[in-house]
């Protein structure tokens, strides 16, 4: 019986079948293979007798429950929502400072280009609003928080509120 023999598969499946139909006769080589097969079956059946299906089922259920991902706590969700708002506010604040700075530099260059007698007429910069100091302080706070990488929910919340109020104030009055 060679591997290429078309009967090889059929004979092997006959030799390794669970049961033979009554009256089935096997040739000598197939009968020998079947003896080996039955011997293997006895060995396997003997070794696999002790298994607790209930224990296995319980372990599987426990594992399935353990793998269920718990919902994040409420304060984590709130913190996750706070960060985008804080970063947006910081970005808006940075843009605002940049615009004010460029406007002030442009004004200074115009003054410098005037004759000396006209420069004396300009006695003070255009932006003397005390809100500038608050903006600078807020920008420093944002930089510190971002640089430290720490997040204290309360501080961030207060800072965000502060920035929003300043932004509203600027929008409604100064700008």
């Amino acid at each position, binding site marked *: 019986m060679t591997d290429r023999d078309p009967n090889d*598969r059929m004979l092997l499946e006959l030799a*390794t079948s669970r049961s033979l139909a009554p009256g089935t006769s096997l040739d000598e080589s197939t009968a*020998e293979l079947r003896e*080996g097969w039955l011997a*293997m079956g006895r060995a396997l059946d003997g070794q*696999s007798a002790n298994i607790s299906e209930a224990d296995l089922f319980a*372990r*599987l259920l426990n*594992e*399935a429950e353990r793998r269920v991902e718990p919902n994040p706590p409420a304060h984590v969700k709130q913190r996750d929502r706070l960060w985008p708002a804080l970063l947006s506010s910081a970005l808006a604040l940075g843009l605002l400072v940049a615009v004010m700075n460029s406007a002030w530099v442009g004004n200074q260059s115009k003054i410098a280009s005037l004759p000396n007698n006209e420069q004396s007429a300009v006695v003070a910069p255009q932006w003397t609003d005390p809100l500038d100091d608050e903006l600078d302080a807020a920008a420093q706070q944002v930089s510190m928080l971002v640089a430290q990488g720490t997040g204290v929910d309360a501080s961030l919340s207060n800072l965000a509120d502060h920035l929003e109020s300043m932004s509203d104030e600027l929008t409604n009055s100064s700008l």
Partner: protein
Amino acid sequence: MGDTSGPQDDSALLSRWVREHSRAVRGFLLGLVRRHDVADDLLQEVFQRAWQARAGYQERGRERSYLLKIADRLACDRSRRLGVEVTVDESAWELLEPSGESQQPLDVLADRDTSRELAAGLDRLTPPQRRVLLMRYYSDLEFADIASQMEIPLNTALSHARRGLMALKKVLTESLAEKTT
């Protein structure tokens, strides 16, 4: 398998899987890895993986072969990790997988009616021979399906089966000869 609709149905289905197939899958694993503790660990992993992937399982009515295929992959992966994928002799197995006190190696079969020689016969098979014969024994798939599942040519699968059976027959013959003398 993908026709479940709720947690209770899922639980009932998992219970049925365990009830109908766990012995066969464990026997298959034990025949491959030959250690009860490892077989138990792999058995749990087989059902976990099968359960996680049950939505994509389409071969209805062939649950056992589905589970055995996963078991075969896990056992092969483990062998690769241990670096003993293809063939090792007895001494190599003992070195790579020494038996601990809590383990129940196949030697316990010597205390039963099932002869020690039969267990030793399983050990004489090469891993590919064991894979083919164990898959045939526990899944009852035809050799063409087994070859496909193991991703080997059909003739190779047939050759492994035939040589494995001849080795087992030889063990039996030797055992009988020893008892008669």
